């Protein structure tokens, strides 16, 4: 018991110190209060509105949502499990590595304590997406029980993934049963896929294929099936089978944790590399050098798996990049290493597939001349781009010293950093819209469809470019990462105004003068580009007064 007493005492002490530290730092208190206020603002109207859904979902919509959820969860789980065959995505703090590991405390007791400590953090991490979506869930007609079941589903995913992935690693790598475990995982994946397709009667070219997630062979499958069952019960009501699944999930989580505790021997080496990597990231984040990462380990392991898969090219770049353009060299190397070349990444085929799929849907149910689908598609992309604020190459470079030390103006440097990402996005959007347009044109022979395809692609690229420059401005105005977090809602609001007002004015004027949607789009595009250049010039002026220490906290 001595070991657990030591561990408990020092974690309690850390927690106490953390609370004291928050009390000492008014900025942090305000930040947390803002966060709580934000949660209350989300939850309160949603709970108050309970019983009066804004749009009640039909059974069909529920099936589509659940099918997408099932695909998402299965991808995360299998990527996490397969990557656990060779590497462990479980981390400790470097303080643990340097002080706790060499100490006389028993390694498996340290691990058990860590697994127990991880439960609340896994709960928070996995439930966070559900928290944001709670109002939407109420609006979709879910009652309190339904929302709780969605939480339960995500919670089960979070609580089961960590110990099961660890267990897979132990059996596979430490007990040398990789072939067995890989075989079991492969058979499971094939079984789930077969059940899905068999239930959908192999009708893979229609939306009916989405119904396959509710095959009994899937819903009764351990782990994955239980998680999907909880989410399904949110829409269609809980049956005694669901309560049995809750019991089984809890039992599995307990058994997996105990098995990890029993089987883990000499595991320190397996966790050190990730601990070092995360410590570097944390240090960078503390110094305001990186964008915030709020990713549960499953996402980390998925990322590691993907990075290992693609990040192994030896790259040579012959071209020279003089002066400020040296920043472009980094982009070229990075993109060549992780993509087909610097202009086209591995995601490009997905854009083509998405465009073809949208075109296919249009041909089945759309009306000739109706461009709503392509606008919706681009609208969704623009929405996603809007919420990608503060990530991207410019925010990364701004945290490094080279932007201050290399010759040239900030204007040129920011341009050198942003050109290639903007070009790549432009190519991807063109691939999406043109593949859609080509498919539609092949059947309708109406070449007009190319006009919105081209204009929307350019529009989205200009929007991306403008946004990158808003990020640059936000960084030079608020060099401190704490300030940026504090003012994040305000920055988003300003961003909306900066993007929206000029575009609305230019678009409105063009509509009034020409009554043509093409000219409206051209006007908005011009406004975006003008605004982007203006913002960059403004950042350039402000950057002149900045010192590097402003970025290093």
């Amino acid at each position, binding site marked *: 018991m*001595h070991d657990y007493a*030591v561990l408990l*005492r*020092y974690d309690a*002490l*850390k927690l106490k*110190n*953390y609370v004291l*530290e928050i009390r000492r730092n008014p900025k942090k208190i305000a930040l947390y209060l803002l966060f709580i206020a934000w949660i209350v603002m989300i939850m309160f109207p949603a709970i108050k509105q309970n019983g009066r859904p804004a749009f009640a979902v039909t059974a069909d919509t529920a099936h589509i949502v659940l099918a997408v959820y099932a695909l998402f969860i299965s991808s995360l789980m299998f990527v996490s499990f397969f990557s656990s065959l060779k590497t462990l995505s479980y981390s400790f*703090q*470097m*303080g643990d*590595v*340097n*002080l*706790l*590991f*060499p*100490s*006389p*405390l*028993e*390694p498996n007791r340290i691990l058990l304590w860590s697994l127990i400590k991880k439960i609340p953090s896994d709960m928070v991490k996995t439930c966070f997406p559900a928290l944001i979506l709670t109002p939407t869930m109420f609006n979709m007609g879910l009652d309190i029980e339904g929302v709780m079941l969605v939480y339960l589903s995500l919670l089960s995913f979070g609580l089961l993934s960590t110990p099961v992935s660890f267990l897979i690693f132990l059996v596979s790598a430490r007990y040398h049963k990789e072939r067995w475990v890989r075989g079991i995982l492969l058979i499971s994946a094939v079984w789930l896929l077969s059940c899905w397709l068999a239930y959908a009667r192999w009708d893979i070219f229609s939306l009916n294929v989405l119904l396959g997630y509710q095959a009994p062979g899937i819903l009764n499958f351990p782990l994955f099936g239980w998680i999907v069952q909880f989410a399904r019960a949110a829409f269609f009501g809980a049956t005694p089978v669901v309560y049995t699944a809750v019991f089984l999930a809890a039992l599995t989580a307990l058994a997996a944790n105990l098995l990890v505790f029993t089987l883990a021997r*000499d595991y*320190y*080496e397996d966790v*050190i590399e990730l601990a070092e990597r995360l*410590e570097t990231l944390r240090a960078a984040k*503390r110094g305001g050098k990186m964008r915030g990462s709020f990713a549960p380990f499953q996402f980390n392991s998925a990322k590691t798996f993907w990075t290992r898969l693609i990040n192994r090219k030896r790259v040579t770049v012959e071209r020279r990049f003089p002066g400020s353009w040296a920043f472009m060299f980094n982009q070229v190397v990075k993109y060549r290493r992780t993509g087909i070349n610097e202009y086209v990444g591995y995601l490009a085929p997905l854009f083509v597939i998405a465009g073809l799929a949208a075109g296919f849907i249009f041909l089945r149910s759309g009306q000739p001349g109706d461009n709503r689908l392509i606008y919706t598609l681009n609208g969704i992309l623009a929405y996603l781009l809007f919420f990608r604020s503060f990530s991207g190459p410019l925010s990364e470079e701004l945290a490094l010293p080279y932007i201050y030390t290399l010759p040239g103006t900030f204007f040129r440097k920011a341009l050198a950093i942003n050109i290639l990402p903007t070009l790549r996005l432009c190519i991807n959007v063109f691939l999406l819209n043109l593949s859609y347009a080509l498919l539609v044109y092949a059947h309708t022979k109406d070449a007009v469809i190319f006009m919105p395809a081209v204009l929307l692609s350019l529009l989205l690229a200009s929007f991306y470019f403008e946004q990158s420059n808003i990020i640059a401005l936000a960084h030079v105005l608020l060099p401190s990462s704490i300030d940026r977090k504090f003012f994040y809602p305000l920055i988003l609001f300003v961003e909306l105004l900066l993007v929206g007002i000029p575009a609305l004015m230019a678009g409105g004027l063009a509509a009034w003068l020409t009554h043509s949607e093409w000219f409206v789009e051209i006007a908005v595009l011009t406004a975006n580009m003008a605004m982007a250049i203006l913002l960059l010039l403004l950042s350039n002026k402000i950057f002149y007064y900045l010192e590097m220490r402003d970025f290093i906290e």
Partner: protein
Amino acid sequence: MENEYILEIQHLTKKFSKKTAVDDLHFSLRKGETVGLLGPNGAGKSTLIKCIVGLLRPTSGNIFIAGNPRGSRKARQVTAYIPEVPQLYNMLTVWEHLRFITDAYEIARWEERAEQLLRLFEIWEQRDEFVKALSKGMRQKLSLCCGIISGARILFFDEPMVGLDPRAIKNFKDLIQELKEGGRTLFISTHLLDPIENICSRIIVLKKGKIIADGSLEELRSRLGEENASLEEVFLEVTADA
């Protein structure tokens, strides 16, 4: 009869994928010895120390500390490790770190020694500050204090003097002398040759994971035929490519 060796390493090999970091090392340390572990970058010094203290798994070979296999509770009870990079608990104060270590090693009446160490390294004033508020050099000093206060019989130092100011290096040397006199076994991996020249009773030089020289400074000098050579000259000579 009690074993005269506190550390025994038998044919230790450590591989990372295809790269061999430590290659069939075989040596022992007597109780009370002070050993300097030298070698160029990438020689395998840190890997060797991490294998001994249980942070890395040997690919093959055995390690015994005070007669106990590495990683066992009895082995760790007599071992202290001072890492190269002083990454500690950000949310614990300097004093709480020492309390934590003495709790883990079950050391009673540690306060007086803790104060003595903190004063020696001139971080007594910072005893109630969080580690995250300390400079890198101060963290290194705290890391040294944590290792020393454990009361371990064998201490492994990985680049202990990096980041220390000249006064702290002098104090560290004095402390090493005190620990030697107290019968502790010290294993010091470093690139700073001058400070350890007069401290170590034995020098082990690693290169590409293998021991290329092992003996007292005098033995190494006489092997090279240069009686007045400094440790730096000996090091450069033995690590020079043939």
